[in-house]
């Protein structure tokens, strides 16, 4: 499938999943599971940082429009897009990313996914919750929110990939 069409479909599906389902799950203790960082993470390797940030910004604005956060998600998405190439460079395998077509847990392996996506998710969530409350005396509360939300977002992203990405497509 054309990579542009594929990502456009993903764009819509991720927005719907985040807006209609995840934004309504409010189990308390500040746990806020986010699936949309996975979209930014799964954008093609070849994209430069600037187009990556622009796409993330637009994507974040759409998420914002559904959750009434007025730019907070857009800001966090841009932060994540900014750090993605840095983390990828830092974790690049021996033969680089030449032969890899798509970014997911199958093509890159579990350990690589854990480190790269885990780090990016941590950056994203920290930025999100810190900017959201923006008060120093709520520091502990922010830490609780991050500590609960990052693992749940991570597990959810893993689950989504296990369910929706078939293992056969991978070219190695």
């Amino acid at each position, binding site marked *: 499938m054309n990579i542009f069409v594929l990502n456009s479909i993903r764009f819509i599906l991720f927005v719907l999943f985040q807006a209609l389902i995840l934004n309504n799950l*409010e189990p308390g203790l500040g746990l806020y599971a986010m699936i949309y960082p996975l979209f930014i993470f799964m954008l093609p390797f070849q994209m430069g940082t600037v187009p990556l940030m622009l796409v993330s910004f637009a994507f974040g604005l759409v998420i914002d429009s559904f959750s009434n*956060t*007025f730019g907070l998600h*857009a*800001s966090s998405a*841009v932060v994540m897009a*900014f750090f993605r190439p840095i983390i990828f460079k830092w974790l690049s395998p021996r033969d680089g990313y030449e032969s890899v077509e798509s970014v997911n847990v199958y093509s890159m392996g579990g350990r690589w996914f854990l480190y790269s996506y885990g780090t990016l998710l941590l950056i994203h969530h920290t930025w999100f919750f810190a900017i959201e*409350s923006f008060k120093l005396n709520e520091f502990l509360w922010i830490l609780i929110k991050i500590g609960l939300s990052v693992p749940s977002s991570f597990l959810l992203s893993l689950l989504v990939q296990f369910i929706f990405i078939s293992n056969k497509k991978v070219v190695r």
Partner: protein
Amino acid sequence: MRNLIAFFKRFQIFLVFVLLQVVALSAYVQYSEFARLQVFSSASRINGGLYDIRYAVTQHFNLEKTNRKLEWENAQLREKLKLSNYKIDRELIQIEDTNYHQQYLYMSATVINNTYDKRNNYMTIDIGKNHGIQKGWGVISSKGVVGIVHLVGESYSIVKTILSKNINVDVSMRDGGAFGLLKWDGINPKICQISGISNDISIKKFTKVITRGGSGIYPKGIPVGVITKRKSIEGKPLWDLQVRIAEDFRTIQHVYVIKNVMLDEMRELEGKIPPDKEEEEL
């Protein structure tokens, strides 16, 4: 000049990053000035429509509870009807409607989307500019205070609920009348705080808290909640009061938007109070 271009090329990525952050964060921090951002909220037609569809699916799950609430409210209203009162003196006491001008008008609305777990919580309701809603009007439910209209779209609007930073609703104690401002610390969606009450005023536990009606957004006497905890703040002569709020934001479905007919007059009058002149420092 060449140096400048070289500089831009070198830090191109970082500059784009900073630019996007400035756009996003300025929108987040001072969104009230960005009227065009109304498109980017659930007051817009597409998002509101989508939430409408979802509400059409999910409303049935709460039908029983909603019915019970409406029945209860009906009973309350029926008690207030003239028919349910017995006229003691048929000749002398007459209710003159000319003595009572209507001050507050109510419009019912359905909540099609809301949150209670974020730092600032908003709800989307299904009435908007087409119905004459304006920014700054109060919103209540049958149980108590809900929030203030924050953004108005064509046929949807967004309400900033009392579970938000800097919401500052004018509240007072039903017994005693001490008044302060309602705040929310972002932790428990059932507990709010009241600040600004001096700790030489005695306040008992389980005192009912009502709106004061001072800002003209809500009428006086709308229930807010009940005082559950009382502590004095160290180093300040103020109470730290915890209020269990009357409305449960996890199950809210129907609200009323309040219009104060005399709000403009009140604001105009209060605007005539001369501002305090700052004393010149020596």
